[in-house]
């Protein structure tokens, strides 16, 4: 029991809180040095591949999941327990203080940092009561005694301090709540194609711990047009300058579709979810015919950008021919004349688009039961039958009478992140409250002031005004001389 009490006292002491703060800062550092699974899972895999010995050790120490690691959690949980243990008793004290009067005036006002005195013949009790009214008007809380007046100001400082710490607690809860019941998904949508809010339609989907799939609001949209503009010329040639996606949104299956434009920084917000435009690329369109001229494939295939000039790579899998056909290659929005590094694009806008394809014949391996990437061709059981360069409208007659491939054009696609975070509003409220609390607690001076009237032998009075600052805010002397001016007791020599 005694040990528990000792532990609790230690945990709630400022010294331990300080150490925990330093630990929290220190513990965050690896999260900025090593790639994190939460934000860049691909870079984590790359790191693990490049560092086969140290990688797994670091992984076991949660170096790639720092902010979800048990040791990070234990630091901030201890810090919040410490904070609660420190703030709760202070809140009680402050509550009592708010309901009580300022303390009795000290006997000797001369000892205080700011002190003024003068002689006057005015009536003692009248000075006290009149000054009490005048000081009260200036926002001081006053207490009258026999021959003295005690005043205090700046209670909002401690109120702000408590508000700040309390709002940090609310913020932590809001972050936890939002993460647990919300979700985050990404989806690639091609122009003229649609998306319906359904788990199976997402490319990646990360639900919170207690998220239920039935919580997905039944909205849907169609991507009508995507437009990207780029800097032309200058040091930043090719840098993106604007993205916009024109959507036709249906908030639920029954409602009328409405046009919405989504841009970076301007997401679509509907029924508790938010739709963000986060990426884009090209999807070249092909019509593939078999040897008899029958269309076996006709669609736009999403190619993924490999560089800032949008050299994009992708594949087309055609399972319905015998043997099966596969196309693998690059889409170049503006083909570069320089081929020393292979086919590359020199500008991200589709000024002079071309595709570079290699055709493969054999078994695509789709029936093996192993999950396959839609962006990669499994060429183990396939044979390359040719390579070709095509401009839009051109047709390539495949060798081996394997049919024809027509590059009919291209569409653009956009990546959307769709999130639901019901804790968001709470977090924002807590954040705003924390700034208000902080400002009050750091900028409002807490001060005490006293007035004492002492009768002298010659039937006059000595008036004393003194003040004490409980904080390090400047201007105590000025404020006390202001208060002294409000004392209606003319000076007598």
């Amino acid at each position: 029991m005694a040990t528990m009490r000792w532990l609790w006292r230690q945990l709630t002491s400022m010294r331990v809180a300080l150490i925990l703060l330093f630990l929290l800062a220190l513990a965050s550092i690896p999260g900025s040095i090593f790639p994190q699974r939460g934000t860049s899972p691909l870079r984590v895999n790359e790191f693990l591949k490049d560092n086969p010995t140290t990688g797994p050790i670091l992984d076991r120490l949660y170096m790639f999941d720092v902010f979800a690691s048990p040791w990070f959690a234990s630091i901030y949980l201890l810090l919040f327990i410490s904070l609660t243990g420190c703030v709760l008793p202070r809140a009680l004290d402050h509550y009592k203080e708010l309901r009580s009067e300022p303390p009795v005036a000290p006997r000797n006002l001369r000892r205080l940092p700011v002190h003024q005195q003068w002689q006057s013949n005015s009536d003692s009790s009248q000075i006290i009561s009149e000054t009490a009214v005048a000081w009260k008007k200036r926002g001081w809380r006053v207490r009258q005694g026999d021959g003295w007046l005690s005043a205090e100001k700046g209670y909002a400082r401690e109120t702000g301090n408590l508000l700040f710490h309390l709002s940090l607690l609310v913020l932590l809860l809001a972050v936890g709540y939002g993460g647990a019941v919300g979700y985050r998904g990404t989806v690639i949508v091609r122009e003229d194609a649609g998306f319906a809010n359904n788990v199976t339609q997402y490319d990646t989907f990360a639900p919170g711990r207690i998220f239920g799939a039935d919580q997905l609001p039944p909205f849907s949209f169609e991507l009508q047009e995507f437009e990207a503009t780029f800097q032309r010329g200058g040091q930043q040639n090719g840098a993106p300058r604007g993205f916009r996606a024109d959507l036709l949104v249906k908030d639920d299956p029954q409602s009328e579709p409405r046009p919405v434009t989504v841009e970076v920084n301007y997401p679509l917000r509907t029924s508790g979810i938010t739709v963000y435009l986060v990426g884009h690329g090209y999807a070249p369109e092909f019509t593939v015919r078999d040897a008899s001229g029958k269309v076996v494939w006709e669609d736009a295939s999403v190619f993924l950008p490999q560089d800032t000039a949008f050299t994009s790579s992708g594949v087309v899998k055609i399972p319905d021919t015998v043997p099966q056909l596969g196309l693998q290659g690059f889409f170049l929005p503006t083909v570069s004349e320089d081929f020393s590094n292979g086919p590359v694009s020199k500008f991200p806008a589709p000024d002079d688009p071309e595709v570079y394809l290699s055709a493969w014949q054999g078994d695509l391996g789709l029936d093996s039961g192993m999950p396959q990437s839609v962006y990669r061709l499994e060429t183990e059981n396939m044979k390359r039958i040719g390579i070709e360069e095509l401009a839009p409208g051109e047709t390539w007659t495949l060798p081996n009478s394997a049919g024809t491939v027509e590059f009919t054009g291209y569409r653009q696609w956009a990546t959307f992140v769709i999130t639901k975070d019901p804790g968001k509003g709470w977090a924002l409220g807590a954040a705003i409250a924390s700034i208000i609390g902080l400002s009050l607690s750091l900028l409002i001076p807490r001060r005490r002031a006293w007035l004492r009237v002492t009768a002298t032998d010659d039937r006059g009075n000595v008036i004393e005004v003194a003040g004490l600052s409980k904080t390090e805010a400047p201007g105590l002397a000025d404020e006390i001389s202001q208060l002294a001016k409000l004392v209606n007791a003319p000076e007598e020599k």
Partner: protein
Amino acid sequence: MTVNETLAQASNTMVYGSMTAFTGAMVAFSISLAKGRRLETIETSAQRTSASHQVRMGSTATLDKPSVSTSLSDDGDLGEGRRAGNIGMSLTWLGTLLLGMAILFRGLSAGRVPMGNMYEFSLAAGFAVSLTYCLMSISRDLRWLGVFITVPVLLDLGLALTVLYAESSQLVPALNSYWLAIHVSAAVVCFGAFTIGAALSGLYLVAQSAEDRVAAGKEPGRSAAIAQRIPSADRLDLMSYRIHAFMFPIWTFAVIAGAIWAEAAWGRYWGWDPKETWAFITWVIYAAYLHARATAGWRGKKAAYVAIAGYATILFNYFVVNIWVQGLHSYSGL
């Protein structure tokens, strides 16, 4: 919209002009500092501090310090250095004005908020440092601080022009938001004021070491050359605390404004992006500083080291994270 090259060129010229003014100011402030003396000797400061320390030990109920007797006007007697100090002050105003114009022209040349890459941010940060210093010096004599302000500003502008320079251009879409003006300008203001706070904390450490040595009956040591030309350790500590206490809510605001913007731009208000992580670390360290100053056994030198560590995290976030660490905040323009 295209970039107006004439305005962009004028902006660059004015940056060079302001660097010339700041260089002159640095020289003038150095002369002024070399000739100056503080009114209270290191010995008296040391005595007063140890006396007030005993008072403090006696009263545990309140957090108050006995008020520091040196008032603002008698921080130091510049003596023959007064003239040089005045020249330094005027040149600093001139440099600040030119830098402000350079930033304005840079913004006008591209028709946007001029805070889109590290070059522009560095100009704004230098401006924030010198403007904060100029504004602070209106109501008190800060000529003794001039060298310690103009040197970092010159370093910052020099780096901006040589390493971080980027041509004036339009913004990438992610930065195209009114939050750029709110979030980044709040961060710039903090950068400026925290620079001054760190300079004051550093000077406090110099003054405190000298006073500690004298109080222990030793020679004031090498730091005395500077210590006897700047205000007492108590004053420096208080000034540094006031700046940090004033800026901490603004830094909190800068981080929260960033979170609100991140929610609109990236689909989450907090994602532990390296830049966010370091902003958080800075916040935690400065929070620790404010707590340390109210904790027995931590106030004084230890707290000052914490404040300087806080500033080091800002520098790290700016130079290392921006340039070498991959993240969403990769707008350095390099």
